[in-house]
């Protein structure tokens, strides 16, 4: 299993390299540190959400409500910060608390009432977002607390361009990378992390070896909520404006990036490294289209093609590998777990 996972990441990486060579041949400005840092900064928001989605997918679930969670955490936090002053640390802490709370509701509903996660989170997405619109009346917050602006400008490494303009690694990128390290540690080296894989792989088996499935599910959705909240604050840092409708609608992009990075929609499979490559592949495609001077009407066509090629290629390889007698060994337990996952409690 582990080997296969690494293989998939290799394909994504190979496509990234090929694409980079292609884009650079059109426009040498692509392969510069400045462009790389710009990309890592503006994709931190998607990337942080992707970490949460990765956990949810590995556990065999799905979450559609994270954009709504992110918006609520962002909106409430900024409102409170504008009222009482606060600080950047306070903002992150408060947002994360809200995120965990909303995530817990998802996890509890899904596990307690056995509602399929996609239905539950579509419902809570509408509920959360609807309540936000009712109470905020859709009002935008144009003026953020001053520390939002100064914090967003922090760089942990500063370089200069030929004409003396500073650029570098933004603190926002650093937050994203720190969270990826944390996530990687949880998944690979903690009991919780291994249990998440176990629950996503086969719920029945997980239960039989004594894993408390409800605890794992609630933890996973709470973690998703926490990361959505951090992403919400990062979004506010990036745009310096809070609009109740600016994040909702970006769910599919994030899920696509995570799946592109090798996570399975049926659970049990996925890695932080793969997720990072998935996010970057989509980022590079979108970045490259302007740099290669492709007209905007073709953007979606291009994105679709790259997704099909990269997922299709590795799936095809996997299928070929598992053809013949191995099919019974590898595929059979998987279908069993899918059938039983729904009515397992």
């Amino acid at each position: 299993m582990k080997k296969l996972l690494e293989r998939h990441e290799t394909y994504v990486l190979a496509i990234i390299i090929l694409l980079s060579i292609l884009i650079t041949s059109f426009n040498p400005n692509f392969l510069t540190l400045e462009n790389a840092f710009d990309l890592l900064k503006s994709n931190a928001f998607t990337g942080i959400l992707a970490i949460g989605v990765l956990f949810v997918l590995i556990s065999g679930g799905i979450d559609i409500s994270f954009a709504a969670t992110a918006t609520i955490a962002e909106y409430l936090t900024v409102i409170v910060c504008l009222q009482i002053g606060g600080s950047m640390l306070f903002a992150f802490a408060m947002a994360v608390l809200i995120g965990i709370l909303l995530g817990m509701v998802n996890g509890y509903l899904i596990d307690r009432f056995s509602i399929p996660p996609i239905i539950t989170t579509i419902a809570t997405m509408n509920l959360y977002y609807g309540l936000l619109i009712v109470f905020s009346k859709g009002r935008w917050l144009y003026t953020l607390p001053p520390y939002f602006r100064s914090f967003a400008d922090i760089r942990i490494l500063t370089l200069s361009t030929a004409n003396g303009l500073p650029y570098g690694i933004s603190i926002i990128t650093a937050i994203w990378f720190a969270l990826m390290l944390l996530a990687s540690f949880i998944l690979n080296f903690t009991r919780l992390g291994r249990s998440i894989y176990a629950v996503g792989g086969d719920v029945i088996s997980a239960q039989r070896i004594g894993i408390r499935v409800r605890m794992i599910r609630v933890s996973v959705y709470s973690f998703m909520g926490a990361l959505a909240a951090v992403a919400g604050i990062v979004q506010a840092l990036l745009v310096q404006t809070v609009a109740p409708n600016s994040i909702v609608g970006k769910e599919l992009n994030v899920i696509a990036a995570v799946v592109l990075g090798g996570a399975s929609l049926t659970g049990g499979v996925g890695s932080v490294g793969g997720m990072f490559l998935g996010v970057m592949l989509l980022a590079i495609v979108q970045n490259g289209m302007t740099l290669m001077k492709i007209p905007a009407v073709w953007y979606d066509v291009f994105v679709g093609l790259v997704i099909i090629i990269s997922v299709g290629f590795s799936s095809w390889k996997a299928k070929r590998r598992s053809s013949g007698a191995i099919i019974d060994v590898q595929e059979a337990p998987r279908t069993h777990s899918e059938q039983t996952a729904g009515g397992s409690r």
Partner: protein
Amino acid sequence: MHNRMKVTLLVLLAALIATPMAFSQGQAAAADDAYEVVTVVKITGIPWFNRLEEGVVQAKKDLGLNAYQIGPADADPAQQVKMVEDLISKDVDAICITPNDATALEPVFKKAREQGILILTHESPDQAGKDVDIELIDNVDFAKRSWDMLVEGMGTSGKYAIFVGGLTVPLHNVWADEGIKYAQETYPDLELVTSRIPCGEDQELAKQKTLELLKTYPDLKGIVGFGSLGPPGAAQALKEKGLAGKVTVVGTVIPGHAAPYLKEGSLTKGILWDPKDAGYALNWVAKYMLEGGSIADLKEVPGIGAVTVDGDVIKVDAMVDITKENVDSFGF
């Protein structure tokens, strides 16, 4: 445990049934001899239509109408149709509507007019089945003014790019088409670097696209952005790259949002009309027509401006430039 849950569910259910009733009672309580003029917007809860509602509220106060505003939670044509049907059964006097889909509404408009309900539309000049349409700008003039603004900033020659909210947003693409046509005739030395980019409703995306444009066309001199988040996103990117003021950015913006960018110089100028004026004008014209006034004789909407009547379309010239000097005076 089980019983408690049942009770909770019952209470919730009761609350769900009671809530809409509470809302409808609030509306019925208003004066019953005044004309009932209902404004239906594309979507509720966004700043643009909140501002339009201020105009409706002012009209209610100034003109003694029973005027109020409703709209769907998302820009859904089917829900607007449903709302108009409800208003027909309620037998209101006039409906002022900003359509999400012009054709979807035609049949209900017909039904409403058969019952003697006036239909006034906004942002839909080619609408069939209406009594009258009111526009606060002339789309061709609006596009020309945008390009003139661009040229004021970057000069009559050089490279520029266009942002729109989406490739299917009618108004944005009409402006882009008209602007490009106008530029070819009037400013032949302007060079559009790439086809219009759909990022005007997403500030982060607009910022990222601007960064990419600057890397691809280092001699880019200007950006025209439609969709209220395009110009601020472009401005943010320029600020970050130390190019504020060196590249011209103009386009549609919401004043309150654009203020910091205009003041720091990363955004050159904005252009817009005030949706509050639209809300007021719609209700004013509704009352005028309900009292038997004829559109052909209409010369001005008091407090808004002079009008040009073209068949069943009324144009009020209410286009405004938004600059760093006047940006704080709009109140939205």
